[in-house]
């Protein structure tokens, strides 16, 4: 399996005339977890959503700049956003399984992308659930509704669903903020496992979570990246006062 990273170059996002992200350039390495932190409204989620062109769906939202995967700038009109979102998966704050069975939630994406063979789909479902650490809990009830799962299980199902289409990059927008501590811990373990195969970018408001799960951290403030460094450096010896004020809880 080839390991792919992602590079944003001078990425700006405007809602109408209002700039939400201002010329942000960041490199996300393969097999690494990068955390995006910052106060509400700093542009980190907007930035994250731009990475797989989800902001295309918002009226008045204009994204300029470049997003490079391999040798392709995906922030260009010629990009097929459906196949792009296959390569760059997204996990949201609240688990959003389809109103279908556990099996169908996972099989939906691969089937949409052309895999019709039942045996191949079975294999993908099993492997995806295993990778998302959900197989043991669900293997005997794959045909049950996904909505019957707990919140934490639903979130792992959503992660399994994004894995099923074989992405290179997984974006996560506060994936554990709606979960209890036990489920949060499982998601964090899962992130640590998944980074062996994927480039992961995670937005989180939970400083300790960022410190626990990520290799690098970017601190956003008013649409700009104030500081981007190894997570250990950010949390022990940040170079900017704004970063220090934010992570020590003295911001405001």
């Amino acid at each position, binding site marked *: 399996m080839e390991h792919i990273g992602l590079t944003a170059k001078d990425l700006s996002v405007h809602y109408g005339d209002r700039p939400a992200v201002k010329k942000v350039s960041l490199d996300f390495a393969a097999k690494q977890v990068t955390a995006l932190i910052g106060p509400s409204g700093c542009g980190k989620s907007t930035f994250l959503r731009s990475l797989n062109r989800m902001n295309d769906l918002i009226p008045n939202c204009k994204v300029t700049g470049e997003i490079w995967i391999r040798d392709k700038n995906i922030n260009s009109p010629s990009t097929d956003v459906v196949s792009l979102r296959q390569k760059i998966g997204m996990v949201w704050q609240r688990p959003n399984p389809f109103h279908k069975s556990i099996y169908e939630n996972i099989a939906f994406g691969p089937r949409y992308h052309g895999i019709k063979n039942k045996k191949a789909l079975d294999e993908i479902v099993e492997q995806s659930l295993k990778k998302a650490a959900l197989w043991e809990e669900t293997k005997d009830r794959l045909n049950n509704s996904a909505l019957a799962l707990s919140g934490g299980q639903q979130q792992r199902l959503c992660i399994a669903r994004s894995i099923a289409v074989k992405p290179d990059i997984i974006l996560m927008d506060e994936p554990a903020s709606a979960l209890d501590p036990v489920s949060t811990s499982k998601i964090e373990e899962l992130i640590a496992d998944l980074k062996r195969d994927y480039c992961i970018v995670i937005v989180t408001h939970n*400083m*300790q979570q960022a*410190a626990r799960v990520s290799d690098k951290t970017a601190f956003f403030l008013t649409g700009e990246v104030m500081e981007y460094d190894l997570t250990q450096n950010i*949390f*022990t*010896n*940040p170079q900017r006062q704004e*970063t*220090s*004020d934010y*992570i*020590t*809880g*003295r*911001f*405001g």
Partner: protein
Amino acid sequence: MVKRMELDHGLQEMTQLLIDMGNRVEKALVESMEALKNGDVETSKRIVKSDSELNQIEEKISEIGAKLIATQQPVAKDLRRILIAFKISSDLERMGDLSVDVAKVVIRLDGQTLIKPLIDLPRMAELVAIMIQESLQSYVDENVDLAYKSAKDDDQVDALYSQIIRELFALMVENPKTVGQAMLLSFVGRYIERIADHATNIAESVVYLMTGKRPDLNQ
């Protein structure tokens, strides 16, 4: 800037306890040297006895720091402040032990007439007392320049120590009957020299607090 009452209060309490420890250590050093000059066994016994108070303060600093880490999740400078409080309190505790060692020498000498007038040992002790004051002041004021300055004083202490050892060695060669006491006095020089090294460690901690870098000032 937003205040974090619990965390800030805990950090201030740790700082106060460190200052208290520092004052006690400096007092123990000055008094033990005075006791050595005067052959004052009673004062020395009191110094030995009071060391347990220093240990208790060190434990208290550990407890507060552990509680803050567990409940407040400090990071960056807040975290470094707690880490160095552990380190500084441990250094001060050792400095207290070494002052006690000086007092124990006084007890062992038990009022013997000294083989030579004490000149350089008290000078060393005075210099080290200043190092203790300055290193702690640099901590309180977050003053990196003062931290470096106090560490620099260690060179003078080392030079004095070498001189004392040379003199005591000459005395021992000249008159073997002095060996017992000369050995004890050279130990005193060694104890004070070690106290200065710990004061230098405190200065290093202050540089780490302010810059996140760990210099080696004990060279």
